[in-house]
C-alpha cells in the first residue's frame, strides 16, 4: 500500500554477520535514552524531565497508543494493513462504557475487546474474503465506528445520562504500587543526585499507581512477542504476512490466520479504547475521546519497524513527549531541543567514525540550527508545545532514518490458487 522508493536490491549471498540480539539492542537503546534524558535534565536544570510524575503520565498516555499499535502489529504481521484502528478503538470505548457502568471494570475490558473484535471481523471480511483494498476498508470502518457508537449512545446512554454523547459513570479499577520499592525510589528521586535520581524517578513512575489494565497492557507486549515469534501459530501468522502463497503451499490456512490476526487486532484496539474509558480521569464514554489515538498507534507501530520492542519505543516516545508538554509546558519542551542537539552530536561523531561525511555535515547543520533555536527562545510557544510529540517523532524519524521493513506481503490482497 505504501509505496517504497528504493527497491530492496538483491544482495548476493553475503557472509552472515553476527547480529546483536534484539533484546540487547532494546536494552542499549533504553539505556541510551535514559542517559540522554538525564544528561539533558542535568544540563538544562529541569528535573521534571525524569521525574516519576512525568513517567507515570507518560505511561498513562502511552497506554492506549501502545494497545492500538499492538493491534496494528498483529494485523500487519499477517499482511493486513489496518488503518481502521481508530474506528475499532472507538467501538471499544463504547463497549467498555456500556458494560462498565453495568457490571464493573472487568466486564468493561471484556466488552471492549468484543466490540473491537467486531470491528476487526468486519475488516477481515472485507479485506480477506472480499479482497477489498485494505485502506478503503479501514477508512470505512473508521466512519462506521464513529457513526455506530454515536447512534447507539443516543439510543442507550441518553436516557441514563441525559447526554447523547456521554455514558453514565463507569466503576474504576483500583491501582497498585510496589509499596516499599515505590517509597524508596521516591526518596532517591528527591535527593536530586545526577543519573541516580533520574533513573529512580523513571523507575518509580513505573511501579507507582499502576492499574490492572496497565499491567495487562505491559504483559500483552511480551505475550504478543512470544506468540508471534516463538510459537507455531505465530510462525504461521507471520509467514502469511510475508509470503501467503508459500504458506498456502505448505498447508497453512492463510485466510484463517488472517482472520484471527485481524480480529485480535480489533480486540487490542478495543482494549486501547477501554484504557481511555477506564482512565481514572474519565470513567465514561465520551464522544470523540479517542482523538486520533488509533492513527498515532499505527504511526508508533511503523516507527517501531513492525516489532513489539520498537512499538513500545514509539508509544513511549509519544507518551513521554505528550506528558512532558502537558505537565511542564514550553520551557521544558525547549529543553528537549537541547537533548536533540546532544543526540545529534553523538550522531555526528558516529557518522564521522563511519566516514559518512555528508550525513555528518547535515547533522552538524541541523544541530547548529537546533542550538540557535534553543538559545534564542525562552520557551516554545504554547501553540506548538501541544504538538511536541509530533515534532519529536518527526525529528527522530528524520535523524534515525532507519530502514523500516514492513512484512513483504503487507497490504497485498491474497487470492488462493
Amino acid at each position, binding site marked *: 500500500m505504501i509505496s517504497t522508493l528504493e527497491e530492496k536490491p538483491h544482495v548476493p549471498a553475503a557472509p552472515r554477520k553476527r547480529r546483536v540480539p534484539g533484546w540487547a539492542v532494546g536494552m542499549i537503546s533504553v539505556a541510551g535514552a535514559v542517559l540522554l534524558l538525564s544528561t539533558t535534565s542535568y544540563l538544562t536544570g529541569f528535573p521534571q524531565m525524569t521525574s516519576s510524575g512525568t513517567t507515570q503520565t507518560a505511561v498513562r498516555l502511552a497506554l492506549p497508543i501502545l494497545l492500538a499499535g499492538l493491534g496494528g502489529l498483529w494485523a500487519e504481521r499477517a499482511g493486513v494493513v489496518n488503518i481502521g484502528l481508530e474506528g475499532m478503538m472507538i467501538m471499544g470505548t463504547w463497549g467498555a462504557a456500556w458494560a462498565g457502568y453495568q457490571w464493573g471494570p472487568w466486564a468493561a475490558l471484556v466488552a471492549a475487546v468484543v466490540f473491537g473484535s467486531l470491528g476487526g471481523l468486519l475488516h477481515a471480511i472485507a479485506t480477506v474474503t472480499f479482497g477489498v483494498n485494505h485502506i478503503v476498508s479501514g477508512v470505512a470502518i473508521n466512519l462506521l465506528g464513529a457513526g455506530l457508537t454515536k447512534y447507539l449512545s443516543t439510543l442507550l446512554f441518553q436516557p441514563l445520562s441525559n447526554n447523547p454523547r456521554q455514558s453514565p459513570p463507569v466503576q474504576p479499577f483500583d491501582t497498585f504500587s510496589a509499596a516499599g520499592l515505590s517509597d524508596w525510589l521516591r526518596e532517591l528521586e528527591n535527593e536530586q543526585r545526577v543519573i541516580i535520581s533520574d533513573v529512580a524517578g523513571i523507575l518509580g513512575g513505573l511501579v*507507582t499507581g499502576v492499574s490492572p489494565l496497565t499491567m495487562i497492557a505491559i504483559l500483552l507486549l511480551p505475550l504478543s512477542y512470544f506468540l508471534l515469534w516463538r510459537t507455531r501459530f505465530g510462525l504461521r501468522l507471520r509467514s502469511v504476512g510475508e509470503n501467503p502463497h508459500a504458506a498456502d503451499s505448505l498447508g497453512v490456512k492463510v485466510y484463517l490466520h488472517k482472520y484471527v490476526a485481524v480480529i485480535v487486532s480489533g480486540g487490542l484496539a478495543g482494549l486501547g479504547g477501554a484504557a481511555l474509558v477506564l482512565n481514572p*480521569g474519565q470513567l465514561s464514554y465520551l464522544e470523540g*475521546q479517542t*482523538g486520533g489515538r488509533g492513527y498515532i498507534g499505527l504511526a508508533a507501530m511503523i516507527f517501531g519497524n513492525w516489532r513489539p520492542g520498537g512499538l513500545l519505543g514509539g508509544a513511549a516516545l509519544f507518551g513521554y513527549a505528550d506528558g512532558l508538554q502537558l505537565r511542564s509546558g514550553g520551557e521544558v519542551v525547549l529543553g528537549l531541543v537541547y537533548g536533540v542537539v546532544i543526540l545529534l552530536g553523538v550522531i555526528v561523531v558516529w557518522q564521522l567514525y563511519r566516514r559518512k561525511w555528508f550525513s555528518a555535515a547535515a547533522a552538524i547543520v541541523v544541530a547548529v540550527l537546533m542550538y540557535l533555536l534553543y538559545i534564542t527562545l525562552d520557551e516554545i510557544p504554547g*501553540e506548538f508545545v501541544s504538538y511536541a510529540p509530533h515534532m519529536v517523532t518527526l525529528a527522530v524519524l528524520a535523524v534515525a532514518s532507519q530502514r523500516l521493513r514492513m512484512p513483504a506481503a503487507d497490504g497485498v490482497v491474497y487470492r488462493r490458487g
Partner: protein
Amino acid sequence: ACAKDTGGSGNNSNTGSGAACEYATPPTASATSSTSAANGDKVDASALKIGLAYDIGGRGDASFNDSAAAGLDKAIADMGVKKENTRELSAAPNEDESAKQTRLRQLAGEGFNPIIGVGFAYAESLKVVAPEFPDVKFALVDGTVEGATNVTPLLFAEHEGSFLAGVIAAYQSKKCHVGFVGGVEIPLIQKFEAGYAQGAKAAAPNIKVESKYITPAGDFSGFQDAPKGQEAAKGQIDAGADVIYQAAGASGKGVFSAAKQGNVLAIGVDADQYNQATVADTKDVIVSSMLKRVDVAVYDFVAAVAKNDLSSLPKVFDLKSDGVGYATSGGKIDAKLQEILEGYKAQIIEGKISVKDTP
C-alpha cells in the same frame, strides 16, 4: 510488595516548596446590589414558540449548553411556555457554516420566535440569517452580531466571576500556589484565566499561578479529553499547586480526578459542579464553582421577549446583574471567606477593581 493504593493518600508527593500566603487586606463588603430582570412580576410567555440552536454537545453536556437548556426548562415551568412549542437542535463537530445557517433557517422558517443561538460559533451565521427574518427575535449567547438589530447579545463577564474564583483559590491554598487548566486556548477561555490570575494575585500578591491549556485554538478536542486534563492538572499539582480551577468542558472531569488523587482542591466552572452527577465521585474536592448563568440569561431573554421589552436586559451579564458568581455548595466556603468575597465583588461592581479579560 504490591499494595493497593487507597484513594489518593499514597502518592500526593507535592514536591514544590510553598509556604502559606500572605494575604492582601481584603476590602470590606458594602451592600450588594443584585438585580435580575426575572425578579419581577409573573410573566406569561405561553404564546411563544422558542427555538434553541446549541453548540457542539447540545443538551446534556453538563456544561454550557445544559445551562441554556436549564433556562429554557425554567421558562417552561414558570412562564407557561408549552413544551411542544420549543425545538432544540445542536451542532455537529466539524460542521461548516452553512449547516449552522440551515439550522437557524429551519427554526425561523417554522415560526419559532425567539430563537437563541448558544455559543459564539453562531455569530457569523446569525449575521446572515437574522436579516432574512427581521421579525424574529434572535439572541446569541457569548457573542455579538454587528449590524443586526434583531440579534440580542447575551454576553457574560466570565473574568469577573473568575476573579472571585481566584480569590477563593488563594484563600484555600495552603502553599500559596494555584493552577488553572483551560480546555482550548481561545479568547473566551482566556477571559477565565485572566480574571482568575488577577483575583488570586489581588488576594495574595505573592501567589504562584500555574496555567495550562490542553490544546491550542482550532483543536477543540481539548474540551473532551479528560485524560489529558488530568495529566495537565497533575503536572500543576506535582509542581506544588494545591487549588486548581478548570475551564475545560468535559476535560474538567479529569482535573477533578487529578485533584482528588493529589489530595488538593478544585474549582468548577459554568454550573454548580458540586451538584453535578457526572462528577459526583469527585465532588468532595470541589470547593466552589464559578457560575456563568447562561440559564438566567436565556430565561431573562425569554421573559423580556414575552414582555416585549428587550431593553431591560443587561448589556453584559456580570457580577452586578448576577449573571456570573460563585457557588457555595459543599460548605467549604466559610462565612469569613464569603465576607471577603463579597467585599471584592462589591469593589468590582463599584468599578474600584477593574478586571482584565485577557491574560
